[in-house]
């Protein structure tokens, strides 16, 4: 390395240093602290007097894995991801295709309208949706009653609460992925479709053999982001049901929040956070591998 190159390297590090420092102080340090906390029984007793803190090794993790509540939360989270994730991606893609279609008039208008729920405050949305879901005077049950369907308890019914939340979340969030899909769609050269049309390919074949393959990177990105985001579902059940009825909408992050900030079991909550982290890491790794492998 010449003196000049060394100089360049040094100045590169000098420029990077502030950002790296900030990341270290505000990200890696807290994460490390949380990891250490997850091996202790830090709670309000320890907060008052550190003599009352115990190092418990892996006990928090052990208790977590033995706790039926954690498995309930994990099951609910998987349910939410498994149903909500694909549904959200499918709805986003369909909306993107519709908005991007040559036949659609005023695409700008629809783009904006579909995007509006994304930027609306969640609490305001939740208030309105709770009215929609009301078993007696809710619009949804009224609509169903026209088809002779008996009223559903939605948020109060243990079996319907999670689907109700998924429906709301998908409605609220599909606009964001839709925008990304539209950007992806617009990157596909029109000439390919023209060529396919000349060869007599139907719209469905064009979709299968041009749109989908060329949308693959966008698809991968959207699927990953949705997966990571959906695993961390918190605000919607927190606002709509507070985890109820009978914990059927309790998610892992909601459980972590309750343990950490409501009951102040910081050690236990940290352990929950790291288990979720490991899980997301594993699942995204698997997904990346699968989608890359297909290529």
């Amino acid at each position, binding site marked *: 390395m010449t003196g000049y190159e060394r100089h360049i390297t040094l100045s590169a590090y000098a420029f990077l240093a502030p950002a790296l420092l900030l990341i270290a102080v505000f990200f890696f340090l807290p994460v490390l602290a949380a990891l250490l906390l997850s091996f202790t*029984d830090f*709670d*309000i*007793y320890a*907060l*008052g*007097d550190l*003599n*009352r803190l*115990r190092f418990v090794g892996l006990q928090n993790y052990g*208790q977590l894995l033995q706790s039926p509540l954690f498995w309930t939360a994990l099951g609910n989270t998987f349910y939410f991801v498994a149903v909500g994730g694909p549904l959200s991606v499918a709805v986003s893609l369909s909306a993107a295709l519709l908005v991007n279609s040559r036949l659609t008039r005023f695409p700008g208008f629809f783009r904006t309208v579909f995007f509006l729920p994304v930027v609306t405050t*969640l*609490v305001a949305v*939740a*208030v309105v949706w*709770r*009215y929609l879901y*009301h*078993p*007696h*005077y809710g619009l949804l049950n009224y609509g169903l009653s026209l088809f002779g369907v008996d009223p559903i*308890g939605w*948020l*109060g019914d*243990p079996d319907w609460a999670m689907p109700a939340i998924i429906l709301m979340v998908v409605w609220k969030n599909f606009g964001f992925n839709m925008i990304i899909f539209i950007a992806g769609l617009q990157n596909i050269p029109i000439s390919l479709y023209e060529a396919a049309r000349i060869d007599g390919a139907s719209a469905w074949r064009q979709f299968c053999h041009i749109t989908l393959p060329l949308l693959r990177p966008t698809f991968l990105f959207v699927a990953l982001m949705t997966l990571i985001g959906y695993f961390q579902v918190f*605000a919607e059940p*927190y*606002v*709509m*049901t*507070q985890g*109820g*009825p*009978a*914990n059927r909408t309790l998610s892992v992050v909601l459980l972590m*929040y309750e343990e950490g*900030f*409501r*009951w*102040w079991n910081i050690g236990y909550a940290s352990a929950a956070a790291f288990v979720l982290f490991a899980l997301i890491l594993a699942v995204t790794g698997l997904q990346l591998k699968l989608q890359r492998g297909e290529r």
Partner: protein
Amino acid sequence: MTKGERREENGIPDVHCIFSGRLKSIGSRLIRLALMLGALTGCHSDPGAVVTVEFWAMGQEGEQVQVLLPEFERRHPEIRVRVQQIPWSAAHEKLLTAYAGDAMPDLFQLGNTWIPEFVALRAIEPLDQRLRDDPAAVLADFFPGILVTNRLDGQTYALPWYVDTRLLFYRTDLLSATGFAQPPETWEDWRKAMTVLKVAGGSMRYAILLPVNEWQLLVILALQHGAPLLRDRDQYGDFQNPRFREAFTFYLSLFEQGLAPPVSNTQMANLYQEFASGTFALYVSGPWNIGEFRRRLPAAVQPHWNTAPLPGFGADPGLSLAGGASLALSRSSPRQDAAWKLLQFLTEPEQQARFYSLTGDLPARQSAWADPALADNRYAQAFWHQLQHVQATPPIPEWERIANKIAYYAELTIRKQKSMDEALAALDRDVDRILEKRRWLLSRSLTP
């Protein structure tokens, strides 16, 4: 039991506060840094001139208490008060964060069930010395059942600011139509009245609303029946105790017989509408609903509701929970003397009566109830009687978690996902686990 529940009844918790929780602690550090810089650049105040007391109060109390303060500052020109208003839903978390960040106020309001927790944190200054030194402090004037919740191991850590308990809100017209001229006084009469109400109401109507995600009524019934809840110096759960089991059986029967709908309070989009339309005739709730019922029930229903003390088991008067909010001095505060003066001022009968007319919060001092605003309030009288018969929940920091478990297993049983035996065994197991740290501390002779 605190008024934080008032929010839960309204449904939506204050999410903004949740998200700003972490930001707040960073924010408060930045603010303190800014203050330090300000001090360095030389804005010295005259020492010893005026003391500023930092006072944190929740919700509407934080707003309305400011009306009382000019009088206090007139009496004590050397003290200024800075009130910080905190929403109930964020209050507990904010106090804990303030404690962790060493940024406690001098004087603060807290739900009386939080006192054991803040005592365990060593965040509260005991008041005993000050109470002894001060002849004006008349502890006997406070409701005794409520005062108990402010004392722990023989020390007084806080004074009640206002009181809170649960009793029966009922539709006088619907109840008298069933042949009961007076509200029921025993469990058996209560059940009879509810059965008649249910039969008269038909399938869409119920006798009583008991939100399935609440633990209060079940615990009240258990306490009335003499169930100890916990055993061995509050080190283990005692929910398989026959007394608790019997109270639980009665509670469950209300749902099994269709007297109460199996709904949670988040499912009740409009409680007041449902009460007005007669969907249920009885409701167990606290003093905050006097104002709400007056405001929200339609004029046609206004003459037809009232409050009554809870029915009791057998001949005993039905006791209820000793709730309310208290005022405490922060142990780390350098301005405790000034803060104590403010605490005394706020618990004077005269200020208590004024505070009642501002907020509807029931005074903790019994002599304040002579005020015409209260003496003439027909809904408040039942509270006066109920407050003579209140009992505290176990005074340990873990209580709220335990109460939450009780609600959880009660709901599972009501929804028939667990049998009563399974639920109670699981409840004892969970509670024993929650109390593990307490057992360890006691076994090591460390004060919990």
